[in-house]
Every structure is written in C-alpha cells, then in structure tokens.
C-alpha cells in the first residue's frame, strides 16, 4: 500500500474518425468492450474493428466500481469463468506491458448469522472442489488478518467468521482500461469516443450496420457491451433482455495511512471496504431498490452503509466521506451475467454482470470475443446464454455476488 503510482501516461491511443465500415463493432468503451476488442484482435486476428463509446473511454461503471477482484463463486459455471478471469488478471500486467497494480491482498467475505456461516462454509467447500483457493476463518483468525475489524459480540451483527480468498485483491481500474486501450490501438482497433449509437441497420433479421451521432457505420457483426444501457440498445435492435438497471453507489474517504491490509465484504450488513493504493478507504453499498438510469442513488443507502462500516471498523468513525457517486448496474434475476448470441443474427450481447463486472473483465473479453468471432460460445460462457431463462438452467449466485440486489 501507499505504493508509488505510475506517472500519468502520455496519450495511449489515437482518436480516429469512424470509417464507413468495419468487420465488427463493439458498442461500449468500458472495460468489457475494450477487453473484447483486445481479444478479437489478438486471438482471432480481427483488427478491422471499432469500439464505440458514447461518452469518454471507461467513464461508466469502469470508473465507478470498487475494483475488487475475486473468484469465490458457488456454482461450477461461475467458478470456471471467474477463476479463468482471475488467472488472466495474474498474467495481464505482463501481457499488456502495463503495471495496473493488481494487488493480491486477499478478500474476506464476512458471515454474521448462522445462515451466513453455513452458506459460507458450503461455498468454501465448493470453491476447493473447483480449484479456487478458499478457506474458512473463525473470528480470531479474521482479527489476525485484519486487526481493525471489530469482532466483539456486542454489535448488532457480530462477525461469526469469514471466507477468505488469498489470491483475490484489487487493481487500479482506470489503468486497466488504459492498458487494454493502448494494446487495442497498437493492434489497429479504432477507439471512437463521443460516438453514441442511435439505432441499428438490419437486413431482415440480420444486423448490417450501426447508426450513430457520427454517421452510419456498416458492419458485419455487433457486440453489445453497454452494461446498464443494454436494454436500451436491445430495444433499438428489436429484442428484450431480462435485465433491470439499478443505481449502485460507492464512496471514498480522504487519504489515510495504510490501516486496512485486505478487502472486507459483508453481504449481510451491506458494505465492502478496501484501502486504495493512494490511501483512500473505498466503500461500496447495496443497490438502490428502484430502477434508475440517473447514475446516482438515494442518500439513505450511503447512511446505511456508513453505519455498517463504522460498526465493523470503529477506527473509521472519524474519517470523512470525500466523494460519493453512482453507476448503473445491469442486474439479472439469478445474479449471473448474460454472454452470448441474441435473437438478432450477427448481434451478440455481453451484459448482466450487475454489481460484479469489473472482476470479470478479462474473461468477459476473452469469451465474448470468441463468441463474436466464431458465432458460437466459448465453453466458459456457454452456460451464461440468454436461453437459460427459457430452459430454467439458472445460475443463482445471489449468495456469492456479495452485493444485495
């Protein structure tokens, strides 16, 4: 902690005018869109492609998340894709030639009720069977790992233990986006900012182009990576998604000396806390209950989150909230993402990552690129198809998602 940050970089990518046609267009220039473009170029040789971003690069949820990376999900399908993501996180700084400060300081998921304890122990067992590093900690071990945590019995929801994944951690999210963007640019991908998609051109049921505020772009394939705005794009294209967009808020304190050595998440009292490399305490909450596209939520959610944080970490009582913000998260009813084909030919969708999309960035990019390039899903994203809502093969990760929604 308190590591020296990399110097502010020079311009890392061009800002080209859009060409009249591309082999593929990715809608959404956040982490997932950039990772998808990177793997399309690197793994599938598709370099005549563009990433369209309606605002500025990585200014949506990629700039608004709490940067937590872990893979301790319950079900086999989730463990496979998130663990693959974690393994990619471990090699990406070298591959992208950019140290985005991936810090494997571990993540703790606290248990506060007997139900939590049982569910958590079950998840540790499931993780071990899937080759995901996981252990169960009793309150004393929790205290040893994170001395500032209050493990007394006299609080409303005492800490009864925690799951711990040592290989989990945090990374600098903006640097991750820049790392992908620079490599994309080197490989010939056009990154086009301030380019909002306003409609799609279709030939029958096949997408053949994208209408934007910078003109019409013909393309053979379209990949949607628009998180909270996925439903809006799907509606333009003529299909529906089982997604609800909610505000999700987070905040930071002023800078402090390193006091928090790991990442602590609590599903039950709705707070998750880490300390950024610079020294801010970074905290996230549960989603606001109502649907919202406003990139802001209600203040009582912040109050609730602060109450939980101060009870768990009495040392935070005198810290100040420096800044709060909200993103728009695309939640599904089974708290698992949707990565795959759509009812529109040659249009593909990557969405539904909800409250946990940052950690999935490399695997989303890898599998979505494979899906776009070949027209068929990668084995890792096959279970996360849209059709699971018809077949009933849901992947219920509400327990492991750790953010209530």
């Amino acid at each position, binding site marked *: 902690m308190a590591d020296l940050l990399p110097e502010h970089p020079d311009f890392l990518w061009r800002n080209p005018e859009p060409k009249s046609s591309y082999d593929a267009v990715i809608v959404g220039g956040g982490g997932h869109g950039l990772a998808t473009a990177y793997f399309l170029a690197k793994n599938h040789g598709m370099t005549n492609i563009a990433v369209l971003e309606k605002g500025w690069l990585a200014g949506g949820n990629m700039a608004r998340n709490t940067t937590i990376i872990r893979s301790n999900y319950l079900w086999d399908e989730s463990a496979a894709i998130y663990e693959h993501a974690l393994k990619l996180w471990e090699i990406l700084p070298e591959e992208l030639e950019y140290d985005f400060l991936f810090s494997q300081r571990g993540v703790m998921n606290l248990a506060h009720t007997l139900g939590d304890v049982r569910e958590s122990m079950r998840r540790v067992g499931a993780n071990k069977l899937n080759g995901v590093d996981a252990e169960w900690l009793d309150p004393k071990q929790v205290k040893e790992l994170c001395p500032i945590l209050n493990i007394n019995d006299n609080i409303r929801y005492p800490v009864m233990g925690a799951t711990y994944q040592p290989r989990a951690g945090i990374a600098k999210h903006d640097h991750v986006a820049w790392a992908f963007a620079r490599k994309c640019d080197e490989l010939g991908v056009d990154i086009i900012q301030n380019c909002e998609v306003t409609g799609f051109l279709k030939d029958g049921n096949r997408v053949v182009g994208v209408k934007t505020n910078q003109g019409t772009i013909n393309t053979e394939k379209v990949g949607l990576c628009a998180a909270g*705005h996925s*439903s*809006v794009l799907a509606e333009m294209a003529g299909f*529906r*998604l*089982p*997604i*609800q*967009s909610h505000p999700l808020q987070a905040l930071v304190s002023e800078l402090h000396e390193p006091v928090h050595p790991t990442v602590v998440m609590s599903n039950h009292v709705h707070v998750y806390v880490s300390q950024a490399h610079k020294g801010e305490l970074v905290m996230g909450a549960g989603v606001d*209950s*109502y*649907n*919202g*596209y*406003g990139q*802001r939520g*209600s*203040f*009582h959610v912040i109050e609730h989150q602060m109450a939980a944080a101060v009870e768990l970490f009495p040392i935070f009582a005198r810290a100040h909230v420096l800044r709060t913000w909200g993103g728009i998260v695309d939640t599904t*009813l089974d708290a698992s993402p949707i990565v795959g084909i759509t009812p529109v030919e040659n249009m593909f969708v990557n969405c539904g990552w909800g409250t946990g999309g940052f950690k999935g960035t490399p695997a989303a990019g890898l599998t979505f690129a494979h899906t776009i390039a070949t027209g068929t899903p990668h084995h890792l994203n096959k279970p996360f198809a849209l059709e699971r*809502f*018809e*077949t009933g093969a849901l992947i219920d990760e509400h327990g492991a998602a750790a953010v209530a929604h």
Partner: protein
Amino acid sequence: MLLISCPNCGSRDETEFHYGGQAHVAYPENPNELNDREWAEFLFYRDNTKGAFAERWLHSTGCRQWFNMLRDTVTYEIQAVYAMGTPRPAAAPPAAESGTASTAPDSTTTGTAGPSIAATSTATGTASPSTTAPEGATK
C-alpha cells in the same frame, strides 16, 4: 431520497416504502397454454425503460397498501401516483434534470382521506386500492 406521495398517508420518505418493479404485469390468462418462451417472458422479462416508467410501490411501514407510480428513471421525478387496478396515466413530457426530489402532486397531507388519486389518473372511483393484490412479483 425520494419523497413519495402515498395515496393514503401523504408524503413520506422513500425509506418507508418497498419497491415492487414494473406495474401492469398480469398473470397469464391461460397458464396451461404458455410455452417455455412465454413463461420466461412472464417470469424473468420486465421492461427496463429509460424514461417514464409505471411501477409498483408498497407503503410497508405506513398503511401497508400497494399503489402504482409513474416515475422518470433518469431524473427520478415522480409524475403520477395512482391506484392499483387503474390504467396508467399519460406520461409527462421528459423534464430537464431536476434533482431527486419528488414533484408529485401532494393532495393528501392530512393523511386522513381515503384513497386519493393523482390528478393525472383516469381512475373513476371504481378501484379499491386498499385491497388490490400486487399483480405479480418481480423479485
């Protein structure tokens, strides 16, 4: 924090309410005839409108009654509050960003009146919101 005009109790803080998702989703009339696709639509697919959205709310720590609300999902402006079982009122034209405070008609500040319907509602008094069950659950 939204300030929500409960039809029975008047303006109360959002923390007194529970969100019920999209309004006007009826249970299928002939459930036996639905195929998997249609069941998926009923169970898992809800509108995710950017703009005026008709949704259900429950005043869980007040009168414990359900009601419907028309709210802009971008500005969060509350445009109408109306009884369960009555049709959706017309959406107001999109408003400029105006903060999260509610601007819903508030005609029930005394909290003693019976079901009070926003002026934009087309209800004619036939509905009985205090006994109307939610039209389906989303969460």
